[in-house]
C-alpha cells in the first residue's frame, strides 16, 4: 500500500469489503471514477466464493457455471473465447485472478484482514474497524463511503430436522468431492442447482440416491436448439415475446425433449415456468430415467436413526446432504443500517443502495436469471457514479436521491416468483439492467 496505515482518516477513500468477483469489480470501477480504495479481504487471496481454497467457498469439485460464458463474463473484460460454453469453477477463479492483476487491483487489497464493524459517524462518513484474521489488535479508519461485497453464498441455511440421525449429516457447503459419495446410500435434500448437481454426481458414485424436494420444479436443459439455453432465452426476450408465450414455449420445449418428469415420481411444479430461480440441469432427467435417482418428498424428521418422509415412508441413507442454500449475513453492520427485516432480509433500493445511508451500498446481492458478474459490474458503476455525483454536484445528487427513493420495488422488479427465501433477491436480468440504464443516465457526468 502506498499510504501509511497509521493515518486513521482516509478522507475521500472508499472502503470495499470483500475481494470476490463483486468486490474486484467495485474496486476497479471506483478507481476508474477517481476514488482511492481500500479493500479488506479476510482470506489471503482474491476470488471469494470461486476460490475453492477459501474456508467459505461453496464450490465442489465438479462446479461449472450454470449460465453460459457470454452472459456471465464482465462486460469490459471477456473470458477467453476458446473456453467452453460453461467453464469450470477453476477457470472462473483464474479469470478473476487475471482481472485483478490486469487492472492492478491487488495493490488496493488488505488480505487476511476482516472488517469487524462499520459505523456511520455523520456527514456520510464511516468508521471501519478491521482486524487481522489471525487475531491481534483491531484498527480503526475513517472512510467517505462503505461498499459491502461480502457475498451471500457462504453462510449455510441449515434446515431444522427434528430427531436423531444415525448416519452423517452435512450441508452442501461441506460437500467438496465425489469421493464423499462413493458406495454410500445418499439422500440429497433440495431441488436447487446445487442439490441437482450433487444428486447427479451421487447417481454416478453412490449405491442408492434419493433426491428430496419440497415441490416440483422446472428443470431446464443446458442446451436447446443447438445453443446454450440462456442464449436462446435471451433471443426470445429480444423478440419481446410476452411472458405467457415464453412460458408456453418453455413447456413445449420440455415436452419435446425430456417430457413430463412426473412419470418418474417427481412432483408437479406448483408454479409456472420462469416463476422460480432457473434450475439448469440436463443430467437430472437422464438419471431419473435410469432409475439412479429416486425422487422423494420432503423430510419431516429423523426417527430411529432413519429418515422419515412426509408420505410416512422411512429411508435409511448413510449420508444426508442438505443443499438448502445460504443466508445473507452482514455481521459488521447493525441490521437497521440495511433496513433488515426481522427475518434477516435487507431492504435496499435496487438490492444495492441503503435507503437511509447514501454512502452505504451492497454490490452483488442479486439472484439474476443470468450471470451475476455483468449485473454486479453495472451496480458498482452506478455506485461509483453516485458517489462521484454526490461529491461534485450535491444539488443534482439530492434530486436523483429524491426521485429514486420514491421508486417502489414493483417498478424495477416485475418478475413474479415464489415467495420464498430463495427468491429474496431474484431479478430479471433484463429488467434490472434497463433500470440501471435509467439510473446511470440520471447521473451522467456533466460534459
Amino acid at each position, binding site marked *: 500500500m*502506498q499510504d501509511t496505515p497509521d493515518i486513521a482518516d482516509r478522507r475521500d477513500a472508499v472502503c470495499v469489503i470483500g475481494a470476490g468477483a463483486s468486490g474486484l469489480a467495485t474496486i476497479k470501477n471506483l478507481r*476508474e471514477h477517481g476514488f*482511492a480504495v481500500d479493500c479488506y479481504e479476510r482470506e489471503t487471496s482474491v476470488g471469494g466464493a470461486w476460490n475453492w481454497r477459501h474456508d467459505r467457498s461453496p464450490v465442489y469439485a465438479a462446479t461449472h457455471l450454470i449460465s453460459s*460464458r*457470454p*452472459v456471465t463474463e464482465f*462486460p*469490459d*473484460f*471477456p473470458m*477467453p*473465447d*476458446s473456453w467452453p460454453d460453461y467453464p469450470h469453477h477453476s477457470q472462473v477463479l483464474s479469470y478473476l485472478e*487475471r482481472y485483478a*492483476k*490486469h*487492472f*492492478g487491483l491487488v495493490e488496493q487489497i488488505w488480505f487476511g484482514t476482516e472488517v469487524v464493524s462499520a459505523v456511520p459517524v455523520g456527514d456520510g462518513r464511516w468508521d471501519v474497524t478491521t482486524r487481522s484474521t489471525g487475531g491481534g489488535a483491531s484498527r480503526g479508519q475513517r472512510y467517505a463511503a462503505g461498499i459491502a461485497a461480502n457475498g451471500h453464498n457462504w453462510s449455510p441455511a441449515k434446515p431444522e430436522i427434528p430427531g436423531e440421525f444415525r448416519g452423517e449429516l452435512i450441508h452442501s457447503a461441506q460437500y467438496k468431492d465425489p469421493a464423499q459419495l462413493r458406495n454410500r446410500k445418499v439422500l440429497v435434500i433440495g431441488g436447487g442447482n446445487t442439490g441437482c448437481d450433487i444428486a447427479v454426481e451421487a447417481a454416478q458414485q453412490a449405491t442408492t440416491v434419493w433426491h428430496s424436494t419440497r415441490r416440483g420444479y422446472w428443470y431446464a436443459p443446458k442446451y436447446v436448439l443447438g445453443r446454450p439455453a*440462456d*442464449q436462446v432465452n*435471451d*433471443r426470445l*426476450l*429480444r423478440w419481446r415475446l410476452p411472458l405467457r408465450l415464453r412460458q408456453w414455449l418453455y413447456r413445449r420445449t420440455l415436452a419435446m425433449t425430456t417430457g413430463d418428469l412426473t412419470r418418474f415420481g417427481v412432483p408437479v411444479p406448483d408454479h409456472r415456468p420462469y416463476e422460480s430461480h432457473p434450475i439448469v440441469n440436463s443430467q437430472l432427467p437422464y438419471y431419473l430415467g435410469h432409475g439412479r435417482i429416486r425422487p422423494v418428498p420432503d423430510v419431516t424428521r429423523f426417527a430411529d436413526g432413519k429418515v422419515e418422509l412426509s408420505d410416512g415412508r422411512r429411508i435409511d441413507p448413510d449420508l444426508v446432504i442438505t443443499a438448502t442454500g445460504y443466508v445473507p449475513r452482514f455481521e459488521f453492520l447493525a441490521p437497521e443500517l440495511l433496513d433488515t427485516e426481522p427475518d434477516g432480509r435487507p431492504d435496499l433500493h435496487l438490492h444495492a443502495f441503503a435507503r437511509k445511508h447514501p454512502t452505504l451500498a451492497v454490490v452483488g446481492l442479486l439472484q439474476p436469471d*443470468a450471470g451475476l458478474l455483468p449485473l454486479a459490474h*453495472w451496480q458498482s458503476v452506478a455506485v461509483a457514479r453516485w458517489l462521484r455525483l454526490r461529491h461534485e454536484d450535491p444539488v443534482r445528487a439530492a434530486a436523483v436521491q429524491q426521485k429514486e427513493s420514491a421508486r417502489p420495488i414493483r417498478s424495477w422488479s416485475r418478475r413474479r416468483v415464489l415467495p420464498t427465501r430463495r427468491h429474496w433477491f431474484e431479478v430479471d436480468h*433484463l429488467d434490472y*439492467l*434497463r433500470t*440501471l*440504464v435509467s439510473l*446511470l*443516465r440520471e447521473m451522467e457526468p456533466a460534459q
Partner: protein
Amino acid sequence: MSDELVRFADWISPVPPVEREVVSRLVEGQSEQPPLLFVAGPGLGAWAFAERWLGHAASRGFPSYALTPRDHGDLRAHVHDVVQVAASLPRQAVLIGHGTGALVVTQALGRYPAKGAVLAAPVLSTWGTIGTALRTNPFGTIPAVFGGRLRLNRRQLFSAALPVEEADRYLARMTSERPLRPPRKTMAPRTRLAPSKRLAPRIRPVGDPPVLVIGSPDDRVVSRKSLEKAATSYGGAPLLFPGMGHDLMLDAGWAEPIDAILDWLTKELSATSQ
C-alpha cells in the same frame, strides 16, 4: 447507453472464435510501462508493425504486441478480436490502431477500458477517406465504394523518400480486402436514426482513457480534415508528420511517429498515475 448494458448481440450470437495471430516484442524483466497492442486494418497484418515499430517500442520499455485481423468477418468480429487479445495481456493495455484498424480500436474502446489509445491515420468516415483516395487512385478505390475490394498504391501509402524496392516489397505482402462494414443487424437502428458518413457510431470509451490522433497532412488516403475531425471528437488536435504517406509504420521516417506516441504516452500516464 442501453446498448452498453443490454448486449443482445453478444449474448445471443457470440462472435465465432478463430485462431488469432499475435506477434510480440517483449521487454526483459519487469516492465513499468503498460503493454501496447497494435491493430492493423484488413489488408495489413501484424508484420507491418513487427517490421519497425514493435521492436522500437520494446527497446523503449513497452512490451509490444500486434494483432493480424481475421480473414473476413465484420467490424463486430474485429472488435471482438481486439478486446479478446487486450484482455489476455498481463496488464491494462494501450490500443494503437492504424487505418481501418483505428476504426476497430474506437469501437473496442467501448468494450474494454484501455489505458490509452492512439488512432494513427484513422479511417473513420466513408467520404473523408474514399474522397481523398478517389482523387489519387480512382481505379483502386471505385470498387470499394460499392462494397468491393480496396486497392491502394505506392503513392498513397508511402512517401517518395522510401526506396521503391522496399515499398514494393511491402505492397507485395498486402492483401486487398473489402472495407470493413458494421454488421447490418446490430447497427441498423442507429444508422437509421442518424444517417451520418461515419463507418460506425461514435462510441464513448469506457474508463475515459486519453486518446491521441496522429497522421500526415500528405496522407493520400485520409485527409487532413478528417484527421482534425477525429481528433476533435476526442477533445484534442492531431499530431501531424508532414511528408509521410498513409502507412506511417513502414514509411521512411517511421521512427518519428512512434517516438511521438511513446513520448505522449509517457507524459499522459505519469499524469494519471497517483
